[in-house]
């Protein structure tokens, strides 16, 4: 009943699509609904769906990225400290990334005691040299969070004169290594660098 219209329409459609060279035979036109399945995987449909998928992924990215730390959080990710304020045998505690940070100026005796025990039996074996920067053994910088359950150890307590955690009795030596008690690992040494002899940047 409408073959002429349908044939004309399909030719027009083909023109717009730019593929008039593809033979649109009368057979195509006389098979309106049943024979010519429009959901066949034509290239244009694949292209459109691929573009949609690509656009979708690009659109989703900001929703994921917004959960990453924001610029003001990142600004506080590093902190610079002037070491001239710390006397030998003194420790300073500062707030770094929401956690306490110990900066301790060790005396030669404390350094010697730590080095002596480098190969003693301990849960998390490490030499003292691995825990400070080369040439600067007096500066020990540690995250002040007990590796057991996160309490803040007190300085100078315990058998080794290092740190003592009052919560469950963990004892750290003058290098911050776990010697007694339930903590599994040594006090964490964060990433830091000396900007000069008296200035350190942590994080």
């Amino acid at each position: 009943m409408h073959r002429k219209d349908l044939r004309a329409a399909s030719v027009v459609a083909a023109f717009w699509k730019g593929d008039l060279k593809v033979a649109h035979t009368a057979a195509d036109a006389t098979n309106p609904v049943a024979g010519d399945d429009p959901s066949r995987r034509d290239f244009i449909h694949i292209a459109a769906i691929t573009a949609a998928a690509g656009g979708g992924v690009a659109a989703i990215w900001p929703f994921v990225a917004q959960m990453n730390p924001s610029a003001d959080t990142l600004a506080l990710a590093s902190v610079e400290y002037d070491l001239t304020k710390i006397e030998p045998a003194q420790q300073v505690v500062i707030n770094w990334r929401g956690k306490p940070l110990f900066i301790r100026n060790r005396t030669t005796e404390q350094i010697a005691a730590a080095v002596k025990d480098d190969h003693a039996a301990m849960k998390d074996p490490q030499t003292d040299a691995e825990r400070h920067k080369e040439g600067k053994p007096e500066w020990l910088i540690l995250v002040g969070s007990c590796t057991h359950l996160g309490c803040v150890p007190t300085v100078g307590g315990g058998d080794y004169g290092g740190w003592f955690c009052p919560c469950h009795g963990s004892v750290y030596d003058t290098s911050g290594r776990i010697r007694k008690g339930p903590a599994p690992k040594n006090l964490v040494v964060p990433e830091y660098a000396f900007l000069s002899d008296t200035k350190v940047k942590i994080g």
Partner: protein
Amino acid sequence: MLRKVTLLAAALLLVGGPALANTTAHEPEPVAFSFEGPFGRFDQAQLQRGYKVYREVCSACHSMNLLAFRNLGDRGGPFYDPKYPNPNDNPVVKALATDIQVPDIDGETGDAITRPATPADHFPSPFPNVIAAKASNGGLAPPDLSLMAKAREGGPEYIASLLQGFGPPAHGVTLAPGQHYNKYFPGGIIGMAPPLSPDKVSFDDGTKSTVRQQADDVAAFLMWAAEPKMEERKEMGFSVLIFLVLFSGLLYASYRRVWRNESH
């Protein structure tokens, strides 16, 4: 008939259009800012001069709480350096920060002290609180400038005009002590004294420091302060629109292909 109705609507809209909000103030003078239009970008040299005007003139009375020193080194900002993608490491930013004292609490005694700022600190306020701000300024607290370019009709052009628009009061207007007349300010009577004068701020790049130059530069700086992501926004917009136009074309072709045998 339909055409007559549409023409009537258009005529009504045309008539109502010029009748703007209830203000007898002058319209701001147009300024050709570099950041206007879909391809506009900030002029970094202008932003640097604008920051100097803010720091040396405006910050005496106006806070800018939402800006941190590190923002000065952000992409699109006055002191951005591609060598320092993290603005907290930018040495110019660090130097500008340490120039300024910010309030803090002493870590040992708990006393209120001031110390040099770090890039993470926000611009300090000239007054400790709103009451002090009002008391020092005849009962009117000078508003925070962080969003001023977006918080006023006319935006940066209004700000630039305002800063140059001080003059003798219009006919019939009397000023109380502490009041000033500005033809661009709605109502005309403003509490701020004319802040700019020729050569008040010397520009490091040698630009002649006329009042007009200072006003345009600080207005551009305030626009950046209000909308620091503008360049990123326009860049992304360009890509998104190109994608959407092409995508719409693909979908249209797909649509025509699907419907090619069906009349509708």
